[in-house]
Structures are given as structure tokens and as C-alpha cells.
């Protein structure tokens, strides 16, 4: 069914089609219409779920942790400072290996206050042990939410579905909304083998000591370090699962096929602009303009930020002469986090392209296509002069 709706509603209908059982959320701009839509679905009887209003984002995640531990498919959503207010519980959800799905409508982080879009909120949360997926349009938001539940429940790791605040959350776009039967065929009911059960009482996530310990049966139970190593290994293993689930999704819905990076005119490109979210689609206009002038340039959107698909990134970028990483976030005091990750992935390549870092659109600063054109042109023409230092685009003072 083709519909024209906002990005937040594209996410909400995905959550409904996934037959989510528990939703706990606290409204925050620009995520608010998503949670409002979900409460409408629940109140109207369209979604037989428990909607739990909470007094904070910390509580929202705490509720999801509890409901997921009890064996219910659980969802929440937030933005910016709300995401950061959950921080401690986010670590807990990952360490508890709970398949919670959360949408984040990306927004800049205060201070100073901003309600507009950049990626600092989720990029700053990259080391939680969550999977982070980024969407470029409404169809991707809708599909990624449905896929996220399958992925989370397959690998027992929570998944963040990130999309640009306002640019996607509040704009209206056509997208295809699948039938419930199709989604049911793709996503079976959540039926964990292990959950809180009074018939077999167990204590989850009990304190660990620095060393391993014997359990009551005399078997060696893992300590903190073993449990953390398993989380990391399973996150790395999730890269293969993402590809597999993308294939399964494609068979039923006819969409997908580019699980990690979405290239545009990259096949023969000497230079590739590399970014996350809706920005990669905007850069396509710049690519088209520069191609007309004879510059072999392409753009690639990254869909999976954690686990970082380093092999896919290396394979996609190692052949070209230069990579221009356009970022809406910064690891303050160093450089763009994505920039550092791209360089790290390319380090073991036989020949390495130059990699430049451009910081754009912080706090919703308008990203003009002409600014992107200038940035790409500058990067390509000044390979040696531009080092690792992030270049700021669109500053007015």
C-alpha cells in the first residue's frame, strides 16, 4: 500500500506492523509525533500493546528493559538530550542482551539548546554495545524498523534506528507500507527461550566479581570480562546477520540489497563522498553536477555504523583516489568519529586513498548544495594541503 506520511509515522507504522507488545516513551522534539501516533494506535485498538507513559527517558528504557526481560517485544523512541538521559540504562540494555528496538530522531545536543538536526546524539553513543542503523528516507525508516526487530531478536542485541530530525521526521514522502501478512511471514512472534519466569526463578545480570565463579551446579560461570567479550564477538557476528536479514527481507518485500553502504555513481569514481543519513541523497545533486563537469565523483551512504562494517567500507573505498567524509558530528578535541572509523578501515588496504573530513549542518545549520559542491571541489583540488583537521562548512562568523 502506497502512503504519503511523515518519517515519524513511517516509523510508527513499522512498529505497529512488527506487533510490538510494550511501548514506553517520553515525548521529545523531534521524536514526539512518533510516540503520539503509537499512543493513537494503542488507544484506538489498532495495536494490542501496553503503552506505558513514563516521567523520563531513563524510565522509558528501564520499562523496556523490564518488559523485554519478561519476554515482550519492546520499543521506545527519543532524541538528543533524552537519549543521553537514558545513557546508563542503554549500557544496561546492551549488557543484558535484550532485543529492544529504539528509534532516534537525530537532533543536536545542548548546550546551547537546539532542537534541530545533527548526529551528535547517536554518534556520541556509539560505544554502548547497541547496533546503530541509519536511514536516508521514509521507506528506509519503515523497512529498517521492521528489520531491526528481527535483527535484535536474532543476535540478542538492542538496535537503534536513527533518522534525521525534521529533515526526515517531519517531512512527508511517499513510501510503500507492506501488508500485515507479509510482515508476519518475515518476523515471527518474539518467543525467547529465556525470560523472567516464576516457574523457574532466576536472577538476571547479577553482580560479577573480577574473576569467573562456580555456579550452584559447580560449572564455571563467566565473569564480567567474558560477558563483555561475548557481546563484542556477537556484535561483530551481527554484520553477517544484517546481510542475511536484508536478503530475507528482499525476498518477501522486493527491497534492499545494499545492507551496509548505499553507493551512487561510485562504480568508476575517483572520489567518493561518504556520509550517514539523508545527507547522502542531498549530495547526489552535487555528484550529478560535478559529473557533468567531468569529475568522476560518487557518494556513498553508510547504513550500519555499529557494528562498523569495516570490510564492506574498505572494499567500497580502497580503489578510489580520495574519500571525503561529510559529518554531522564530531569527537570534540580530535576529529569526526566517522572519519576516524573510515581511516581505520582503510589502514590495511594495499593502496589507500586520501581521506578528508568536513563537518556540516551542526544544530540544523542549513547545508547548501553549493557549500557541498565547494567542499568537494576544495578537497579534490587540495589533497596535500588538507590534513586530518576537520574542515567546517557553512560557518558565518
Amino acid at each position, binding site marked *: 500500500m502506497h502512503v504519503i506520511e511523515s518519517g515519524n509515522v513511517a516509523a510508527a507504522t513499522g512498529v505497529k506492523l512488527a506487533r510490538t507488545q510494550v511501548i514506553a516513551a517520553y515525548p521529545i522534539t523531534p521524536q514526539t509525533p512518533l510516540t503520539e501516533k503509537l499512543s493513537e494506535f494503542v488507544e484506538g485498538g489498532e495495536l494490542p500493546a501496553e503503552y506505558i507513559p513514563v516521567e523520563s527517558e531513563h524510565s522509558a528504557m528501564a520499562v523496556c528493559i523490564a518488559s523485554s526481560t519478561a519476554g515482550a517485544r519492546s520499543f521506545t523512541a527519543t532524541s538528543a538530550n533524552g537519549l543521553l538521559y537514558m545513557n546508563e540504562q542503554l549500557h544496561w540494555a546492551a549488557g543484558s*542482551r535484550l532485543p529492544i528496538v529504539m528509534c532516534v530522531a537525530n537532533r543536536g545536543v545542548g548546550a546551547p539548546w537546539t532542537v534541530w538536526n545533527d548526529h551528535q546524539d547517536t554518534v556520541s553513543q556509539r560505544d554502548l554495545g547497541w547496533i546503530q542503523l541509519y536511514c536516508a528516507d521514509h521507506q528506509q525508516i519503515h523497512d529498517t524498523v521492521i528489520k531491526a526487530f528481527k535483527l535484535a531478536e536474532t543476535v540478542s542485541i538492542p538496535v537503534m534506528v536513527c533518522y534525521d530530525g525534521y529533515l526526515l521526521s517531519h517531512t512527508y514522502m511517499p513510501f510503500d507500507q507492506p501488508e500485515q501478512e507479509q510482515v508476519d511471514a518475515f518476523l515471527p512472534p518474539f518467543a525467547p527461550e529465556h525470560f523472567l519466569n516464576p516457574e523457574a526463578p*532466576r536472577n538476571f*545480570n*547479577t*553482580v560479577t566479581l573480577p574473576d569467573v565463579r562456580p555456579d550452584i551446579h559447580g560449572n564455571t560461570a563467566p565473569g564480567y570480562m567474558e560477558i563483555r567479550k*561475548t557481546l563484542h564477538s*556477537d556484535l561483530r557476528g551481527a554484520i553477517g546477520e544484517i546481510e542475511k536479514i536484508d536478503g530475507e527481507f528482499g525476498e518477501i518485500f522486493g527491497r534492499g540489497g545494499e545492507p551496509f553502504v548505499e553507493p551512487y555513481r561510485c562504480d568508476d569514481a575517483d572520489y567518493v563522498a561518504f556520509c550517514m543519513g539523508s545527507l547522502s541523497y542531498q549530495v547526489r545533486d552535487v555528484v550529478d553536477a560535478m559529473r557533468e563537469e567531468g569529475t568522476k565523483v560518487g557518494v556513498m551512504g553508510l547504513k550500519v555504523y555499529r557494528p562498523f562494517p569495516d570490510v564492506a567500507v574498505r572494499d567500497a573505498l580502497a580503489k578510489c583516489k580520495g574519500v571525503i567524509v561529510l559529518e554531522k558530528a564530531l569527537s570534540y578535541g580530535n576529529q569526526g568519529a566517522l572519519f576516524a572509523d573510515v581511516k581505520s578501515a582503510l589502514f590495511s588496504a594495499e593502496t589507500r586513498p586520501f581521506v578528508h573530513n568536513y563537518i556540516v549542518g551542526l544544530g540544523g545549520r542549513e547545508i547548501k548544495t553549493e557549500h557541498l559542491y565547494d567542499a568537494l571541489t576544495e578537497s579534490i583540488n587540495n589533497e596535500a594541503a588538507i590534513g586530518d583537521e576537520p574542515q567546517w562548512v557553512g560557518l558565518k562568523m
Partner: protein
Amino acid sequence: MSKEEFCNMISISEPGPGDGGNTGSWRVLRPVLDATKCIPAKTGKPSCFNCWLYCPDGVVTKTIPPTIDYTYCKGCGICAEECPSGAITMVDEASFTKEEK
């Protein structure tokens, strides 16, 4: 997912003695029960049992007289604090010989 895989994924415990290891080794003070003062021991009747009720680690038995499992008793002293007849004394572990330990 097998139970073993799941148990390696997170920290998990089942009710039973010793899930936290030999916690008796943490003890600095040992609760020692004097049966001549203990109410159930003196009367021969199931009564009081505050030590059993309050023990946070469940290492005191509801028997006549109550017994304390020193393999897991951490020596917190709550039983001594709650005993209405002063029958439990906390004794420095250093004062016991190797055999007594």
C-alpha cells in the same frame, strides 16, 4: 539458543547455595551461637528464629538449635544484632586456629 549459550551471554544465577562462590572467605568476624542463651535451644520449642529470618544470605537454619553455614556466611553480624537474647557473639576470625577455620 541453548541454556549454556544464554548463560555465557549474561550474568545469571539460580537460587541455591554458593552461586557467588565461597563467600565465607570474605568473613572477618564469625557469628558464634551460645545454645545456653538461644531461646529455641533453651526451650526446645520452635520459636524466635530471628537469626534465620534476618540472615540476608540464608545461611542460618530454622532448626533447634539454629546452625550457621560458615562456608557462605559473610560475617555481616545482622543475626547477632537481631538476637533478642544476646546468644550470638561476633568473634574475630584471627582468634580461631587453622583447624577451627
